[in-house]
């Protein structure tokens, strides 16, 4: 009897904490959606801000965020996948490789402001890219690389050894084996993990604050050396730095909702992509 009671209490608490977490997230989402929808309009999405963002829209910040994410994707994806292939397929598994892998996992946990300062020092100042899309993308790429590498390694590890053996036993070289019978099955997992990592980077403020974000720049960028406005930073300014902060709730919530939708959109792409490829190459 007593055991049963303890178990029931335990399950009750676990269920309660789960509901609590879901409730908090739901509350935040609902709050943003309900208060953000009135602020959304075609004008809000398609025009530049006026009067420091108190009027007009957020188009430059949307464009800036999307450019930044695409830049990050283009830089980080090939580097991350290449490193993962090397680490899991070619590098001799030993103490050194282990240290490298552990180092990468540790990097994934480094605070984003540290990456921001690193980007400021290396890309903005030393390499003289200035505060620009290029510097920001490179910084975000550094920040997301560890996650991409780890996700890609997991995807490679998930490919059964028997496929590799079968291919090698037929006289394929190691690279042919990887190219034809490892990568095709692991790319979906790699892409999915990478998109999720970059989606998370979309909401980061600290790294871009130091390397790319413009306080107020109501025009679209014309090259990768331009500064841009970006949604998270714009939101921060509207909410805390703006002289009329209390009077422009609709702009603040509207911006938050758009940022949320972009991140969710990224995640949705990842999920749909994975589902499509799962069907094509299913082995278990």
């Amino acid at each position, binding site marked *: 009897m007593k055991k049963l009671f303890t178990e029931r209490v335990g399950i009750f608490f676990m269920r309660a904490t789960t509901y609590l977490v879901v409730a908090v997230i739901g509350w935040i989402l609902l709050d943003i959606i309900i208060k953000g929808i009135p602020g959304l309009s075609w004008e809000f999405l398609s025009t530049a801000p006026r009067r420091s963002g108190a009027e007009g829209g957020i188009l430059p910040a949307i464009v800036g965020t999307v450019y930044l994410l695409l830049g990050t994707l283009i830089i980080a994806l090939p580097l991350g996948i290449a490193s993962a292939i090397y680490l899991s397929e070619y590098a001799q598994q030993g103490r050194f490789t282990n240290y490298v892998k552990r180092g990468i996992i540790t990097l994934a946990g480094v605070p984003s402001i540290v990456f921001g300062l690193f980007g400021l020092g290396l890309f903005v100042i030393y390499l003289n890219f200035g505060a620009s899309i290029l510097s920001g993308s490179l910084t975000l790429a550094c920040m997301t690389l560890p996650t991409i590498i780890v996700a890609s390694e997991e995807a490679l590890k998930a490919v059964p050894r028997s496929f590799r*053996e079968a291919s090698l036993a*037929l*006289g394929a*070289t190691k690279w042919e084996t990887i190219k034809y019978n490892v990568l095709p099955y692991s790319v979906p997992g790699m892409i999915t993990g990478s998109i999720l990592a970059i989606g998370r980077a979309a909401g980061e403020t600290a790294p871009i604050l130091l390397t790319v974000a413009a306080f107020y720049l109501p025009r679209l960028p014309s090259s990768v050396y331009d500064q841009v406005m970006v949604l998270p930073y714009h939101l921060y300014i509207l909410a805390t730095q703006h002289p009329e902060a209390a009077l422009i709730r609709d702009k603040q919530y509207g911006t938050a909702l758009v940022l949320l939708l972009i991140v969710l959109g990224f995640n949705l792409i990842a999920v749909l992509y994975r589902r499509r490829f799962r069907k094509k190459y299913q082995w278990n």
Partner: protein
Amino acid sequence: MAKELKIITDDLNFYYGEKQALFNISIELPAKEVTALIGPSGCGKSTFLRVLNRMNDIIDGTRSTGVVTIDGEDITGKDIDLVALRKRVGMVFQKSNPFPKSIFENIAYGPKIHGMTDKEELSALVEKSLTQAALWDEVKDRLGDKALNLSGGQQQRLCIARALAVEPEILLMDEPASALDPKATTRIENLIGELKGEYTIIIVTHNMQQAARVSDNTAFFYEGRLIEFGLTKGIFTKPANKRTEDYVTGRFG
């Protein structure tokens, strides 16, 4: 009549790191016959099999000493062309492992990586290989289907066809029927009988009856050593060694 010898090993030792797995193996395997490797788990028979196509190379820290020749050519050297070796020495694994692709793609993969590009040539080879593996009639109308939708026995015959498609001289089989039901096992065994006139077949098996049914020669391994090697008839009727007798009669294993 002296038999034509295909594979000869002389004083072969094999190590996984510090652990020695094979001790002083000297054996002469005749061409175009079936040789069964038997012995209890961990006796080194699979390791020996994988020495013959250098599959052990993919495990870090393995090394061998001694000589292994195929048609008089040593294959243990560091600078051996593994692609060429594995093209000559095909392998079928314990657990069927078709690629998650179509039946056609599975068979055509080997020839393609060895440079065959002509579509008709490929199609002809796919048909020939599947026919040799006694699978053609069952799959000829659905070559585009996923290989993983085939039954277990069909998948294993597909893997045999895949190995045959690169036109090897030797076929290594690592317990090819151990995961199959009796009917599928019989088909594989019949297939081995049909293939042996053309290929030198080395088969690892845990199944004594199977070794007796399919093989011409049998080698008994125990704790990394070759205990006895001879005609299958002899090994199963009057083994020279006490341990061989105990094993083949089921007293241990």
